[in-house]
């Protein structure tokens, strides 16, 4: 392996493109979904990058492209100095050892017929880490770490656990090999608030203790802000804004980010009712035939002729804060 340069980001994604050909029954070609189109970003060691965006904006596809399941159509993903997109199967497997994923569906991500301890041991076996005894010890350690008593939970099967517990098992599996990066695709969205808090705290604890980096995907903006150092906003397969969490939430630049932030329901009833809320109307365009130019222009209150002709590129407005908009919002 190459020696990792300290200043080199842990993960560097460049111009990632992922497309799907959709087919009807009998294999009729229906069109090409432009799920991710030219996305670039970095994640540094110990950093959490939040990704937000509405349904279908390509968040999950982005996550899967990074872990190469399936490999993206084009682009580069440099992880610890290896370009995953072009490396061989063996190298990829080696790299994946340091890169794990936690899925949205807590039950679906655990094989329903396996015992919890077997599930957690799977990566240990898969990467041949340790002997039987060492492995068993490591499994207990991991279960303890995620707050599950190995004695009472180790022999259970997923359906005997609650959603939050399942998610913790999935996390235990993800950290089993001390990865450098965990990709969380809506890892807490299906949990209710009390459990969600437990899981989020666990992530936080692992980050501070083990120095993990996260790619944290959600469409809950408040939640993303809670956990992220930097936040990227996706819209229809493209990054429209990326920047430090605080800055981005305080001074959103992209009209879409503004609309998203405005949609967050407020916990203060007196303030929430009867305010002019919505700044976004209409339906999201189809990813099969996205609009020309800026993909947000059909719903954008600030859209102008230029938006239809010219696709805006991501440009840095303030240090670390970039936006892809011809007419960024400036308060």
């Amino acid at each position, binding site marked *: 392996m190459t020696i990792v340069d300290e200043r080199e980001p842990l993960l560097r994604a460049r111009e990632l493109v992922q497309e799907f050909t*959709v087919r*009807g029954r*009998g294999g*009729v*070609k*229906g*069109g090409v979904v432009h799920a991710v189109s030219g996305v670039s970003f970095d994640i540094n060691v110990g950093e959490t990058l939040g990704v937000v965006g509405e349904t279908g904006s390509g968040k999950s596809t982005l996550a899967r492209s990074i872990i190469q399941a399936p490999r993206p159509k084009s682009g580069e993903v440099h992880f610890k100095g290896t370009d995953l997109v072009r490396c061989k199967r063996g190298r990829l497997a080696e790299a994946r050892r340091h890169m794990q994923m936690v899925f949205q569906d807590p039950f679906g991500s655990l094989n329903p017929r396996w015992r919890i301890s077997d599930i957690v041991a799977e990566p240990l076996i898969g990467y041949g880490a340790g002997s039987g005894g060492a492995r068993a010890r490591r499994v207990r350690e991991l279960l303890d770490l995620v707050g599950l008593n190995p004695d009472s939970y180790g022999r259970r099967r997923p359906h005997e656990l609650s959603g939050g517990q399942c998610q913790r098992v999935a996390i235990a599996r993800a950290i089993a090999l001390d990865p450098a990066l965990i990709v969380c695709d809506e890892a807490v969205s299906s949990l209710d608030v009390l459990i969600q808090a437990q899981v989020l705290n666990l992530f936080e604890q692992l980050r501070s203790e083990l120095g993990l980096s996260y790619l944290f995907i959600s469409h809950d903006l408040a939640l993303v802000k809670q956990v992220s150092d930097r936040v990227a906003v996706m819209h229809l397969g493209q990054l429209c804004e990326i920047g430090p969490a605080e800055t981005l939430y305080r001074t959103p630049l992209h009209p879409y980010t503004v609309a998203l932030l405005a949609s967050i329901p407020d916990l203060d009833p007196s303030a929430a009712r009867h305010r002019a809320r919505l700044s976004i109307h209409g339906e999201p365009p189809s990813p099969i035939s996205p609009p020309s130019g800026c993909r947000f222009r059909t719903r954008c209150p600030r859209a102008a002729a230029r938006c239809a002709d010219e696709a805006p590129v991501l440009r840095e407005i303030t240090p670390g804060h970039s936006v892809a908009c011809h007419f960024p919002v400036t308060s």
Partner: protein
Amino acid sequence: MTTTEPVTDDAREAAPGAVARLVHSPSVRLIARRLVAAVPIVLGVSILTFIVLSLIPGDAAQLLLGPEATPEQIAAMHRQMGLDQPPVQRYLGWLGGALTGDLGNSLVSGQPVTGELGSRLAVTGELVGLAFVLSLGLAIPVALLAAYKPNRLFDRVSMLVSITGLAVANYVIALLLVLVFAVQFAFFPAIGFVPIGQGIGENLRSMLLPAVSIAFPLFCFYTRFLRGDLVDQLRGEDYIVTARAKGIGPGQVLLRHAFRNSSFGLLTVVGLNLGTLIGATVIIEQIFALPGIGQLLLQAINTRDFVVVQACVVVFAVVAVLANLVTDLLYAVLDPRIRYGNR
């Protein structure tokens, strides 16, 4: 299926650019694609038949010439039949003919196979078609009634009947039907086929018992399948709850919602079933002395008339492939998710 909209959909569909839309319509593309995909399948089937047939011991020449034939006689007969050529060449020769619609001449009788198949196809086709119509025509209402009140008397009785149909061999059913409806009460003929030309009534009368013999097990199978699927829909699907929440009655929910969706599953099963039907026609045609393809196939196998066997198998394969194409098309026509899918 009844729909209540006052303006028909077809009117909208026939909007300007109809030709362009036709070419780009998923159905047309589906047909084209599937027809292309069918070619290797039929080709594969014909090759497989060729291989299988060459594995069967004995050949037509030996059978024709009898046990006392000298090797020279057999060799001469082989030459006459073209069996002396290497298999690949024989196959290619056959294929060339088949592509031009000439399936060759029977080894045993020397008659052209194409014409013979054509007239027999009509009989088997009618038999199978009638069986489908009967089985589906009965299975649907019975399954609906059974699913209307699951686990009640009607459901249980229909289950017992269905399982009887699955357990009792079709040839036993055929003989029993004849004993009752042809011998005891002379409603129907016991054997024989009356061509449509001699009156549609007589024709149907002659085909009814054979068709019922084939249809009954099918009916039972479809009933079980559809009933199960309907009950699953009624129990598990959210749109059923929506429908109930609208305040419409259980009959409407069953017919308009559950059945509509179950019908697609049924369609697949019906399409796949066609292959197994061929076994049934061989037996039933034998019992009812119907001049169909099944009868021909069995005779041809027994006389090692491989040209005829090959032709029958290919015809069956084409029919099976077409049936699947038709079900796919029906899907595309009936199931809006495909009709308007992913555009």
